[in-house]
């Protein structure tokens, strides 16, 4: 009988946070600050005022979406590392459509723009997915390599046809007013994109947890062979997951263009696609986990930038904390899996032995 690890996932993630704080105390001390004070500034203070709390949500918006995008793909066993590029394609589409819909009512303009961004993101995701399913080409490499290509495309547009005719800066012209996401709360930057992210996460949760499609997707991710044996079309499932993942990442791009920048800019995404991988991992690939992890990282980002001012420490310490947190979480997850396997009495790489052992333990 395989024992269920006492390391339930919430305990594991909480331990990862504690370990991270212990490890990052060193760099914080080196920067001349009190670690406890710094953690309070990083994590607690942003949640104490309305303004910073709303900023936390604004910062979480893109990574809620990219986190959900990555988590869906990973659950299907499709390792999409290309959310960054898919996000940029969504942003390009949003900027292009946003300019063209001048004069259209927001009730039409916004859905068209969101749909366009989703299609663009999915289109950027389809080639690696087909290469994987048809020819077995590793999607980790292909999706990753398409990210800089997408960035080049953005910069090519901004230094070429889309350069702002008024200012001459490498930025696209401003999108139509009717294409801008409305803010949700007066005098804040919290925009429609946040609501969209919540809807996407809720929908993704529903599909994964409650529908036959979601069960097939999970089955394909947990055991491609077992899923195929049960009559599930694993190839089609992977392509489907890749497309949905790309579409959600594309919506993240739309959200940044229509909600924050109101135009396409070169610095639109400071790596939101990659942070999505962190969010998905910290959230252990579940939608509620992704939501918590995204808000937590948003909290940390806002906290780190204000701590930089109040405590005079480098704002990069926020990134250090995030990086250490990712590594400790992955390490704990890996060791839990390793221990579970050791409990099986199996040895790495000896499938036969593992099967016998698993069969026999009653």
């Amino acid at each position: 009988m395989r024992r269920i690890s006492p390391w339930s996932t919430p305990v594991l993630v909480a331990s990862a946070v504690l370990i991270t704080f212990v490890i990052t105390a060193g760099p914080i001390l080196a920067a001349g600050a009190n670690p406890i004070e710094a953690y309070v500034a990083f994590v607690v203070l942003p949640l104490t005022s309305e303004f910073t709390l709303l900023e936390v949500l604004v910062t979480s918006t893109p990574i809620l979406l990219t986190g959900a995008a990555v988590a869906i793909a990973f659950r299907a066993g499709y390792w999409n590392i290309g959310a960054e590029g898919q996000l940029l394609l969504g942003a390009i589409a949003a900027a292009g459509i946003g300019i063209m819909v001048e004069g259209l009512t927001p009730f039409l303009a916004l859905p068209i723009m969101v749909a366009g961004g989703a299609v663009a993101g999915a289109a950027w995701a389809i080639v690696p997915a087909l290469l994987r399913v048809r020819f077995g080409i590793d999607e980790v490499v292909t999706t990753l390599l398409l990210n800089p290509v997408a960035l080049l495309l953005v910069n090519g547009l901004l230094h070429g046809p889309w350069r702002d005719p008024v200012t001459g800066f490498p930025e696209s012209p401003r999108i139509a007013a009717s294409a801008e996401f409305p803010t949700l709360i007066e005098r804040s930057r919290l925009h429609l994109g946040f609501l969209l992210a919540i809807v996407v996460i809720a929908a993704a949760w529903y599909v994964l947890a409650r529908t036959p499609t979601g069960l097939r997707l999970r089955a394909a991710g947990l055991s491609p062979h077992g899923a195929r044996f049960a009559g599930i079309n694993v190839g089609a499932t992977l392509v489907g997951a890749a497309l949905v993942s790309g579409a959600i990442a594309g919506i993240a791009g739309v959200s940044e263009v229509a909600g924050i920048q109101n135009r396409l800019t070169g610095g639109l995404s400071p790596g939101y696609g990659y942070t999505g991988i962190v969010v998905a991992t910290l959230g252990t690939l579940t939608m509620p986990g992704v939501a918590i992890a995204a808000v937590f990282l948003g909290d940390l980002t806002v906290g780190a930038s204000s701590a930089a001012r109040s405590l005079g420490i480098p704002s990069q310490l926020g990134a250090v904390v995030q990086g250490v947190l990712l590594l400790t979480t992955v390490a704990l997850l890996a060791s839990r899996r390793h221990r579970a396997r050791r409990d099986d009495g199996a040895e790495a790489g000896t499938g036969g032995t593992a099967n016998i052992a698993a069969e026999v333990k009653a």
Partner: protein
Amino acid sequence: MTDRAPTLELRGITKRFGGLVANDGIDLDVRGGEVHALLGENGAGKTTVMRIAYGLTHADSGEIWINGSPLTMRSPRDAIEAGIGMVTQHFALVGPMSVAENLALGRSRGLALDLADARRRAAHASERFGIRVDPSATVADLSVGQQQRVEILKALSRDCSVLILDEPTAVLVPAEVDILFATLRALVAEGLAVVFISHKLAEVRAISDRVSVLRRGKLVGTVAGSTDERELARLMVGRPDFGVERPPESRPSAGEPVLAVTRLHAAGAAGRPVLTDVTLGVRAGEIVGIAGVSGNGQTELVEVLAGMRRPTRGSVRVGLEELAGGDPRRMMRSGIGRIPEDRNASLIGDLSVAYNLVLERLDDFRRAGRIDEPAIRAHAEELIARFDIRARPDDPVATLSGGNIQKVLLARVLSRDPRVIVVSQPTRGLDVGATEYVRLQLLERRAAGAAILLVSEDLDELLALADRLVVLYEGRVVGEMARSEADLERLSMLMAGREAAA
């Protein structure tokens, strides 16, 4: 035999995996100048005991002695230093590198790698041991037989005095087997001790001085290499115990076969034929048993019938419907229930029992677009009760014992009332109670009119359950007989690739 201490001696090696005893107090010795074969069916414990001798697995108890002194074995490094070399079934070679580089790997010290020197050493070793390989050839370009030679050369150039070969002929074509045997004879003549793991009788007789036979983890006996094949086969498969659950005497099975396989061909890795011209039929209410030593095409035959492998030629019919090349869904829909040998890989361990029970037919458990959880639960509870599965609906399948996992698979298949059941190694690794249960279920289905194709390496099981037996050898049907005509000797000879000596 000489008076010298054996080069390698195993004393009382015992190894358990969970409750399964893979090796039960095995004593074995091999001396310089002999080939000592380790013979046994799949799962008899041959590979495990030799992995222990090479430090890849640790024994629960027992001792390993080298040249008369005990050896503490922590890892293969200790084995290599003590002069033990092993060529496993999966080669540990770096494909894109040359033969010389592969030989230098793990031996080079310091930072610099003198390639010219490595090539010289490789050429020298190749000449000294009479194993012909081109030191500058890229390993990936070599045939499997040549790669095996590189592996042997690698072990020899580390000055080993015992060489363990795990099923070395499994990957070779006959001409390469001849070369391997010639090489081994020459090496043994120079004083090397060789352990040769195999389940092929003819080969064992051709090369060995002594043969140790393992059955179900126990050493049955050590006999001279000249022992005749019948005796070896008898030792290897044991005496079948007739009459445990023998079905009522075969009625004259009448009518057209429900499952008809005609002139089926299939290819394995690198286009090697794994099934050649296989024709067989199973009628309603009949169990046809497939006998054969493992690796003779049974796995591939089941894969084709399960929709997991495309045949290269031939026909598979259920009734009038042609199914060759169909996917798993197609096979299920035509009424084939599939219980393959690898039951763990056929279920999804991390999903619950309830989900696994409905995974083949999720569309029947959909309501308003969502999963009908109450119906799935009720279905699971019913099957758990009916098939006596010791689990709750929400338990992940991976937490179940082997017997219960098999019952889950059995319940998933049988609850759909399949016309045809394809079942492979249904009781492997199960305890007595679960074994009996599974066999009774199959007999019950036979009585209810299902056509059952039963693949098993357990001759007792085949003789207890089957109405007719078909023997596969190297992917071909080499014999077919009613159970009443089947006797162990004839089966053993057919399984070993010898014509029955009447």
